[in-house]
Structure formats: C-alpha cells, structure tokens
C-alpha cells in the first residue's frame, strides 16, 4: 500500500504482531510443555515452556500402558469409512446438482442448505432413537450413519460449488468426440475437480476424527471408544491424567495441524467458492 514505512510505526506493528502471535500459540505450546513433564511434576505452578528435567515418559506410558493405540485404530477405521462414503456420494451428487436442471433439484438443494441451520440435536436425537430401536447403539455402524448424516450435506454443497467453476464446454467437446456421459464425467471432470475432492475428503475425515458429542452418546463400551472419548476420559472429574492427556493431544493434533496447513489454501478457496459464493 505505502511505499515508505515509518520505522517507529513498523516497530510497533512487529511488536504487536509478535505479542499477539505468542499469545495465540501459547495454549498449543503449553500442551506440548505439559506432555514433556516428568510424572511427579505434572501439577506444577511453573510457566517454563520446556521443563528442565523433560522426559518422554508420558508418551511411553500413552503408547504402551493405555488403550491409546486401540482408540487410534477405532478412530481411523470409522473416519476411513465416513471419508469413502462422503467422497463417493458427494462427488456424484454434486455433479448432478451442478450440471442438470431436473425437477426436484431446488428442493433438494434447499434441503442441503437448510441442514446447515439444524441445531446439533435436531438429527442426533431422532437418529439416536432410531438407532436404539434398530439396536445399533454401541456399534460402529450407528456412529458411521450419524457422521455421514452430518458431513454429507456440506460435502455435496462444496462439490457442487467447485463443479460450477469448471466450464461445461469441456465435457461437451468430449461428448462430440464420442465420450459417453459417464465417461466424460469420470475421465474429464473428476480429475479437474481433484482439489475439491481432497477438501471433501479432509472435511469428512475431520468430522469423524475430531468429533466428541455424538460419539459420547452412541458408543458405550470403552473398547469401542474413539480418540476424543478416550482423551476426554483422561480428564475425568476425579483424577486428571494431565501427562497422558497432553501427550495424546499432541499425537492426535500435530498431524492434523500439518495436514490443515498444507491444505489450507484449497480449503479457503473451497469455502469462498462452494460454501459462500454458491
């Protein structure tokens, strides 16, 4: 904007940015710091970021003396199925919404958007009652159904928004060359939409991987627990196992954060294109 910068003003900007950024990342640093503390000093009034006598004991305990790996496996399994379902259904339905003007289109598109205004319990409660009657409470299938219900509408909307930006002339050219409708979708449009597919996959994955409130109702036996339920258990009312909780959060959180940062550019363009601009 301005060519010349006042050095005093520039200094103040940097000072403000640095303080604000430190305050922002402090909670994350704090968790890492707690995860490195030795067991007898978990409850400490120290504010040092790296404890002088740091150890990886909490991580060892987490991996070998707690059901953490079991939860990891459970969460991965559920998230994988939800992701495959979400991508398969949203990539086809989104295409249909984007390219065809069929009767019932605006009704279903409206339904998809309206679900964004559902309070969390709106689907959870009837689904819970239905699952209870079908005896699917405390099963992965029940949880997968509930997660797909929450993730699918947004995924469809997102995919539709992205397909809208791909010119239909590409498929028309392919069809003139003798491609069938399905082939032109499969061979031409789908590869072009791969950024949106990645975002849809990430979104479906996250809605299963990082979800607590639904899982807390549907899963009851501890050996079925997903990661969020497990980590919350470390923080139960009586005795909070801070070391295990912190180590678990770091192990679960860091890969997600890295993935998010790598994909954030597409995520943002997806949000502004698909979610907001329509």
């Amino acid at each position: 904007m301005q060519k010349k910068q006042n050095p005093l003003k520039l200094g103040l900007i940097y000072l403000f940015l640095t303080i604000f950024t430190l305050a922002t990342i402090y909670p994350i640093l704090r968790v890492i710091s707690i995860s490195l503390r030795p067991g007898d000093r978990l409850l400490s009034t120290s504010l040092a970021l790296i404890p002088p006598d740091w150890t990886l004991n909490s991580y060892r305990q987490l991996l070998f003396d707690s059901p953490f790996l079991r939860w990891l496996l459970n969460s991965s399994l559920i998230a994988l199925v939800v992701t495959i379902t979400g991508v398969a259904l949203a990539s086809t339905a989104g295409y249909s919404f984007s390219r065809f003007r069929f009767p019932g289109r605006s009704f279903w598109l409206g339904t998809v958007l309206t679900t964004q205004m559902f309070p969390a319990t709106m689907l959870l409660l009837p689904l819970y009652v239905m699952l209870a009657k079908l005896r699917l409470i405390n099963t992965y299938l029940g949880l997968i159904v509930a997660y797909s219900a929450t993730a699918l509408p947004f995924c469809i909307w997102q995919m539709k928004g992205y397909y809208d930006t791909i010119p239909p002339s590409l498929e028309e050219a392919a069809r003139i060359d003798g491609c069938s409708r399905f082939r032109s979708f499969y061979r031409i449009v789908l590869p072009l939409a791969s950024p949106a597919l990645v975002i849809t996959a990430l979104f479906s994955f996250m809605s299963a991987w990082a979800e607590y409130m639904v899982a807390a109702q549907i899963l009851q036996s501890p050996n079925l627990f997903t990661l969020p339920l497990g980590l919350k258990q470390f923080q139960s009312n009586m005795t909070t196992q801070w070391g295990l909780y912190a180590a678990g959060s770091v192990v679960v959180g860091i890969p997600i954060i890295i993935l998010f940062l790598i994909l954030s550019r597409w995520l943002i363009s997806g949000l502004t294109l698909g979610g907001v601009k329509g």
Partner: protein
Amino acid sequence: MNFATGFQRIRREKFAYYLIAPALLVMFCVVFYPFVYNILLSFSNMSMTHFRHWKLIGLRQYIKVFSEGIFYSVFFKTALWTVVNVFFHVVIGVSLALILNRPLAGRFIFRTLLILPWAVPQYITALTWRGMFHHEYGAINLFLAKFLHLPAVNWLSNPNTAFMACILTNVWLGFPFMMVIALGGLQSIPQELYEAAEVDGASPFQRLRRITLPMLKPVMIPAITLGVIWTFNNLNVVWLVSNGGEPSDKTHILVSYVYKAAFNLYRYGYAAALSMVIFFILLLFGINFIKRTKATEGIY
C-alpha cells in the same frame, strides 16, 4: 410445467438421477427421515419411561418450552454468546488481516502461526483451555499472579466467570477463519482505487473507511452469517469447557441445554420441541443467507 413435459425431462435427465440417487437415498434415510421423525417426537411424550409406549400429546411440549423461564434466560445467554463471539472474531480477524496485508517481512510466518487455532480439533482446544482455567495450576491464573499480581480467580466454579472462560476459548478458536476470509477479500481490492484516493489527498483513515471496509463487505457478510450460525450451534466449546453446564447448569447456551435435556435427562419429546424452536430461530436468520446464495447462483 405440465405433466407430459415433466416426464420427458425426467427421462432426458436420467443420467442426473443415476448420479444423484445414492446420495439422495442416504440423505433421505439419515437427514430427511430423522428430521420428520423429530417433528413427530416434538408432539409426543417420549421420555425414558415412555420410550416404547409413547403417544402424541399435541402442543404440550412446545407450551412447556415457552412457559418455562429458563428458556428465556438461556436464549438471552445464547444471543449474548453469539454476538460477543462473532464481534471479536470479526474485529480481531479483520484487524489482523489489515496488518498482514501490508508488505511486511515474515508475514507468511505470522499468517501461518495465526491460523493454528483453527487447525486444532475443537475438543482438544476446549479440554486444553479447561486445563488452563484450573484455579491452582492453570496458566491463566499463574499469569495473573506473576505479571499482574492479581489474586487467583476460581474461573470454573462461578457461573459468570465460567461463561467468560467459554467465550474466551471460542474467541481464540474462531478469529483465524475471519482473518483468512478478510485477507482473501483484501487481496481482491484493486490497487488503482488506493492510488486514485491518494492523488485526491485522502488520509489513511479515509481510505480505510471509504474504500477498504465497503469493499470488504460483500466478502464478510456471508462469512459473518455462517459464523453466526456456527457459533449459535457450537456445542463442543460450552459443553467441554464447562463440563456439561457446570456450575449447576448456569453456563448453558440453547444447544447444550437441549443436549442435556435429551441425553442426560432423557426428556426426548421436550428436547425435540426445543430443537424445532432453535431451528426456526436459525432458519429465520438463515433465509437471508439462502437468498444470497440463490441470487449468485442465478448468474451461472
């Protein structure tokens, strides 16, 4: 359209239906049917004791919702929660975006670090902040004591401070979204406008007020609408920071209150009715949002 041409269109668009059928089938089973079922439940007396043998009782659950004082106090708190959160999200987000939009060395690093709160799974954020508000060992009180020499605050055992703790947590996790959207909006403002304004002798403040903010508006309005809906509906933060509405159910917002009514108190009919009420509040607000997206769809 008359029936015959409608039927023809269906045949011509057969491919569209093949593609969409699986998703619609799933949506019908897991979204549409439960929605209708929820409406039915909201007119019923279903509860723990009436789980198998429930019956329709008309509007009684709705009357209960509106005749109890707690609905109004929780609704007021939800409105406060939404307004305060979204206000801070937008103000902090837009301010940071304005700063980061300058040619600063290292702004990529600041940008990346400032997005982090958005990237952390919400339940981890909430549980971590709950730890930070611990009255003896939490980082917040340690900071207050060490740098400001203030006495320790018992954050989570007083309704007001516990609610403040929830808000603080949610402000932290929510501003990066607004910052990122605003940054995107700022980059699309043509430079010529600023150059022209400078030629005309506009002060930096005038340029901010007359160019930057009005040009940001079309990008920010949909983001704010979405932000309001998400914040209004944010169950995770309130539930996990306050541990289910502690102390004594004084920190609830509407969604956490319904969640408790349904799953801790097993008042299914009542919870279904309250869900419907919340849904209509949001729908009223969101119709504006739908209209906006429909309007832009018309262009294509």
